[in-house]
């Protein structure tokens, strides 16, 4: 089920991938979340043990946390990376993302109000940036592009979007 290409690709998916370092970044993030989750699971297991429910019950939260952690740290970042595609066209920004539910998003250039690049400390460590597109109906983030690419994407969008907006 995962291996199959999304059928929406009847139209070709946008050509550009995110930076490959995104996978490492996401994996690190997932690892940190995993640690937190494991800590909660340990507390829950200890609580169950103290409640004399039998040690069998204590296994459940720990096993659950391990399972979730293995999935989110293991295959998820790679899969998410391969799904994430983008294209900055003349008329529209074309995005595709999503793990199980694959979403294709089209945003006309003239609807983009402004563009930001943003870097978290961890992103800075890897030389990555996020580009955030703001429209009057909310924002959407293109995560983890290489710094220089993010900058040029931002500038290109800003340039293309700088036409009179007929919203107002």
């Amino acid at each position, binding site marked *: *089920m995962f291996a*199959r290409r*999304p*059928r*929406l690709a*009847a*139209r070709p998916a946008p050509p550009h991938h995110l930076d490959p370092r995104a996978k490492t970044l996401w994996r690190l993030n997932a690892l940190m979340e995993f640690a937190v989750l494991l800590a909660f699971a340990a507390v829950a297991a200890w609580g169950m043990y103290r409640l004399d429910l039998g040690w069998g019950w204590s296994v459940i939260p720990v096993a659950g946390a391990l399972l979730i952690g293995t999935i989110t740290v293991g295959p998820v970042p790679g899969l998410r990376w391969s799904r994430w595609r983008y294209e900055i066209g*003349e*008329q*529209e920004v074309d995005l595709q993302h*999503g793990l*199980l*539910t*694959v*979403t*294709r*998003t*089209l*945003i*006309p*250039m*003239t*609807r983009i*109000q*402004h*563009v*930001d690049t943003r870097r978290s400390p961890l992103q800075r460590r890897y030389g990555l940036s996020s580009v955030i597109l*703001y*429209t*009057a*109906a*909310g*924002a*959407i983030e293109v995560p983890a592009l290489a710094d220089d690419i993010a900058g040029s994407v*931002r500038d290109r969008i*800003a340039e293309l979007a*700088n036409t*009179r*907006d*007929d*919203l*107002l």
Partner: protein
Amino acid sequence: MTGDEERPEDSGLQTESLESFPSQSAVRSPQSSPFLSPDLASRRLHPAWIAIGLVRSLRAFALPLLIFVVTGRQNWDAGVLLIGAGIGLVGVAARTASWWVFRYEVAGGELRVRSGLIARQERTVPLERVQTVDTGESPLQRVLGVVQVRIETAAGGGRGSDVTLEALTRDDAAALRQRLAVGPAGRSPGGLEATVQGANERSATDAAVRPLPETQGELIRAITPGALFVAGATSGRIGPAMAILFGAYQFVDDLVPESILERLAMSAPGFGLRVVLVVAGIVGVGSWLLAVVSTVLTFGGFALRREGDRLLIASGLLDRRRSTIPISRIQAITISEGMLRQPFGLAALRIESAGYATDSAESGVLFPLLRRSEIPALLAAACPDFAADAAVDGAGLNRLPVRARRRYLLADVWQLLILAVVAVAVLVRTGWLDWRWGLLPLALAPLAAMYGWVAFRDAGWIVDPAERLIVRTRQVARQTAILPRRRLQRRDVSQNPLQRRAALATLRVAVASGGSGGRVELAHLDEEVAGRLQAGLGPRRAVPARDQSRSAVSPATSAAGGP
């Protein structure tokens, strides 16, 4: 970027429009009287602002204060009084000082609001970004002879998307509205030429006696007392009303001594089911009456007027509210047919305008109740761009493929099934009740399936010749959204693994909106149709040759795309 680095939320401002303002005012000033110059000198609010704030904080403190007075009678001495008076004095002084520093002005094509006692704040709203201007008055404001003006911008409903000036005299409010009205004309498609013309026309009307907003313009439709009552009776706003009733009950329960209630209960023969039924009946009827009353108060005196390129909406008996919405900034119109209204051919019209946050019942209502057959005429008069007959009768709508029906039917049934499984598991494990009680959620399954079936039958879409996407869905009420192609901010098509297997997909489109109302979702379209709709509803001018095939959702092809 548009050269505005300090305030990212405003940087959507186009530089060219900034430049156009001085020239525009230069063009305007010769014709305008000095009083009507485009700028408005910096000024304070009406001093009533101080009183309004104090009354509001008093109201917040009223209940704790009451409890304190009632319970703490014994240690009620001069010291406490002194402390109370001291706190009060500080409050009055702080509010007065805040009033002193609060200033607003219109200058250089911007509305500027300065505030903040300790941390000075300055908000700048380019007039071009002003979406709607609301004038309202609560009973208190009416007593004090002031009105409240709220200016909403297209900042996407987040922080700082609106400016509220809580106490203005009627004259000040009118003057402010006049200046803010520059916005829509400035953005009219004809560019500067049209702006100049618009300015001329406006100053011509300005020269005449400016009538109050409630009598301005041409009346399109006002609500009748009969319709108002029907609107309340069918509003379905029973939930909030019930909450109020339960709150009142709790209050009574706390105040009335237990013994009286007990005696009441004892004196009633056959205490039990009968009492429960009677109480349920009283709560039901009471909630319904409350819903009627609240609807009457909210929509009493509702009148929709049109003045040139703006809609003026007046509403409310106690809290009076008047909104000004430039017609060119309406993003979408939704025809909403509630379950109690649809059988009688009644509907409400909602308006999606970029500035509106969906924070209150009356915001964004174009008309609270009318016959379905009267909708085309009203739309044609109020906002011709949205007068789509297909949205009203729904005859030409493309339906969803038959294989989507099962998903609609089972959408809520699955949840009930999971709930039942969990309930049975818990009951088996704990033995609180017989495990068969856990199957209770399944009793609702036929109802859920029926709702799903109706939702499937209602769902449909069409792109009409005027390039409006019309989407009909059911979210308890039947909602028909009219979305012009050029208003769409983004189009999403998503597919989960199960949909992928059935070659179905979900289409979501969004228009600019202050609240969440600007999003429309149509689930389980044929994936190819969804993809074609998504691609075809994009910007149209100067389409590159390779994209020609993509952008071909003409009415003909879209109709052929139906199942």
